[in-house]
């Protein structure tokens, strides 16, 4: 065998940077240990929001970053997840741990139903179509009496903390751990996806659909697969959020702002990169929460002005997002020379 070929074949498929693995392991342990050091309620809430938004952004990253389809209506799947757990718990007493999966299933069905016609569109046409779909969900739920119409659903509160009802009134720490575990599982699965045959093929669809077609890739099917995966990641966050605040209404869980924020987080952190949504969420969520504290209400929309400013700066100076500050051979797929 040619020696250069033999050397190439003997290379590991992926970089295994032990230092990075150690740092990540340390960070995970630290995240599990943080509540034990008596974090106050605000910091627990802050981390819960970071975990939640990071997963939501990761969901958007799968459809937009991996397969190249810009969805502006992803909040719909968040709302479906929220309503699924709240409605089935209130009406039939079904534990949220089961209805989370029901929410994922319903979201997947809607992703297929929406995806089959919509993913024939491309570029801004798909984006506009998804924007309208997202808004239409909000309008439908505002008028749907079965699920409380515009007033929404007030989840029946348990008298005490309950793991089966996923309700914790005495401390936010259990919520912290639930969101953290979902966050870690999601990132691990998406990390696996990015390194799988499916991940390679989705990136091919993103980079050049025609070239992908010439390589036996059914572009439409792969876009739908990405959309379904993305929807199934988003829905559980809606479910957990509903259990966290115990009151949901269409304006809150189907709000267009949800779709926009996950986009901003992903683009800021680094679209198409598994680590981008983590970095984006870790920066934008605290800005949002602190502006809410210091400026009152919803933050006087100052958080959105900050988002806009940061995004403009990033787009001009770091179009690949903040992740581009980290050397590629550390966190990226293997690209060393």
């Amino acid at each position, binding site marked *: 065998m040619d020696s*250069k*070929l033999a050397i190439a074949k003997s290379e590991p498929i992926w970089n295994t940077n032990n230092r990075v693995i150690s740092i990540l392991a340390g960070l995970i342990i630290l995240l599990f240990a943080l509540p034990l050091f008596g974090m106050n309620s605000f910091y627990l809430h802050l981390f819960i929001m970071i975990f939640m938004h990071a997963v939501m952004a990761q969901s958007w990253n799968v459809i937009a970053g991996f397969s190249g389809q810009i969805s502006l209506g992803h909040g719909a799947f968040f709302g479906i997840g929220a309503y699924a757990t709240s409605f089935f718990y209130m009406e039939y007493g079904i534990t949220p741990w089961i209805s989370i999966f029901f929410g994922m299933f319903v979201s997947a069905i809607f992703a297929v139903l929406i995806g089959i016609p919509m993913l024939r569109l491309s570029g801004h046409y798909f984006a506009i179509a998804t924007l309208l779909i997202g808004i239409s969900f909000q309008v439908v739920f505002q008028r749907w009496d079965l699920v409380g119409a515009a007033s929404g659903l007030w989840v029946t509160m348990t008298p005490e903390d309950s793991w089966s009802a996923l309700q914790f009134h005495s401390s936010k720490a259990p919520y912290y751990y639930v969101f953290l575990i979902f966050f870690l599982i999601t990132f691990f699965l998406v990390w696996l996806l990015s390194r*799988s045959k499916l991940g390679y093929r989705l*990136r091919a669809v993103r980079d050049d659909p025609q070239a992908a077609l*010439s390589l036996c890739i059914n572009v439409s099917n792969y876009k739908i697969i990405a959309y379904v995966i993305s929807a199934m990641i988003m829905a559980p966050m809606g479910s957990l959020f509903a259990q966290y605040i115990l009151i949901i209404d269409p304006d809150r869980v189907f709000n267009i702002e949800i779709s926009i924020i996950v986009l901003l987080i992903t683009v800021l952190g680094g679209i198409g990169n598994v680590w981008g949504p983590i970095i984006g969420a870790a920066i934008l969520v605290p800005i949002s929460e602190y502006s809410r504290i210091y400026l009152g209400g919803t933050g006087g929309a100052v958080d959105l002005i900050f988002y806009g400013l940061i995004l403009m700066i990033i787009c001009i100076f770091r179009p690949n997002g903040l992740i581009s500050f980290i050397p590629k051979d550390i966190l990226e797929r293997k690209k060393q*020379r």
Partner: protein
Amino acid sequence: MKILTVENLSKSFGGIDANKDISFDVEEGSILGVIGPNGAGKSTLFDLITGFTKPDTGKVKFFDKNIFGISPDKISNLGVGRTFQKLKPFADQTLLENVMIGAFVKEKDIKRARDRALEIIDFVDLIEKRHHFAKELSTGQRKRLEMARAMAIDPKLLLMDEVTGGVDQKTIPGLVELVKKLKKTGVTIITIEHNINIIMEISDNVLALDQGKRIAFGEPKEIQNNKQVIDAYLGTFDAA
């Protein structure tokens, strides 16, 4: 054995015939050169055969299977690979990743797909560039990338659109040698070329098109002496 049979293939865009009643066949293991002036319908013919454009009428058979109007992914899955006139590398992915995406058609396991991709990259003499992003490669190297990526699906028939187009003089001989090397692997090739000397050198048969119509089909020497071809395309071609 005939690997491809095209009969009366036609396609018009807004009343203008891009291809009109094109018929020819290709023997397995041979190279068919397609020539014609700009706008003759060469690339459209590729798109019709590979399913990227739906033909209006006619027949396209790959071995005994009718592939008329089938989607491009299904046609490529049958063993028809192609490259593009306007190069289409997956720009933000490495050369190795580009070829692996093709290799996944035959290899489900990631390591085996990687090894197969490396063998093909070595075949096209780019092994040292395997970790370079496609966007970092020169035009000639990208041509090799596209050939490698198409080879990775293990095609029986490979359609190559202007292999030497847009590259400098020094790069051309290497690409021509690569096409000859490809032929030796047993793959059947249809290639569009503007460089007549190259077409005459590598082709077993030549199909000449003009204004969407077939004006000649035969061995290179016949084509060289065909008056219609000379009038339409070759002009003052130096037969020596």
